[in-house]
């Protein structure tokens, strides 16, 4: 556990871990409640960020299309 960092959790969340890292991270989450809590909090924040999506105005899209 002492070698485990939040960077590992971030990489795990974004599917950027190698297979051995994925297994180790999943084990750490399953084994240590504090790591599990840390991961759950991180996921909750990322999910909230995911929900924030803005649209450009239709005018902007039409301007681009008129350029073609």
């Amino acid at each position, binding site marked *: 556990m002492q070698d485990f960092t*939040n*960077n590992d959790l*971030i*990489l795990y969340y*974004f599917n*950027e871990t190698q297979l051995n890292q994925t297994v180790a991270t999943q084990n750490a989450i399953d084994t240590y409640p504090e790591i599990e809590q840390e991961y759950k*909090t*991180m996921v*909750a*924040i*990322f999910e*909230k*960020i*995911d*929900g*924030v*999506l*803005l*649209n*450009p*105005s239709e*005018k*902007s*899209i039409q*301007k*681009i*299309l008129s*350029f*073609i």
Partner: protein
Amino acid sequence: MQINDVTDHQLIEQYTNGNKSAIEHLIRRHQQKIFTSLYFLVRNRELAEDMFQETFIKVINTFNNGTYKEEGKFLPWAMRIGHNLVIDYFRKKQRMPLVYDREDYSVVNNLKLHDENAEDKICREQIHNEVRLLIEELPYEQREIIIMRHYADLSFKEIADVTNCSINTALGRMRYALINLRKLIKDKKLSCYIIIF
């Protein structure tokens, strides 16, 4: 074949083969992620609209010139163009963005509506507005890392290349962004506090 089943690569191919409407599908498919990224980088709607148009004009020019090389995914490539435009803009102005756009920009009107009751809708509106304002409060480099990883779908290695830093630095910025977001949510006792903690 449904338009959703057509890949970005196929749309680009259709466009370069003369099907002009293919570009509109490509724009509409990625408009939210690209526009949201630009908005969070410049924190000003008008400027984000300009950057959005300029990004896609550069994209179209690249297609028209026949210089587009399919080396990876379309979205990260287009986001790099947008990111470079932002960097150029602030380099010319010789400062990073400081002005917040606090106009009452309705995030809700721009989000897809699902089956939800009025209470759910109000709650969702509030959380999204809060999260948007929180992201805007982060230092530029932390905002940038969230945008590039979360919306532009760049890997940490790609972000490190684009922003000229190491992967560990990129990860560190993401870590600090998360720490700051948690702190802001707690300090401000926002409505998403209950959901997150």
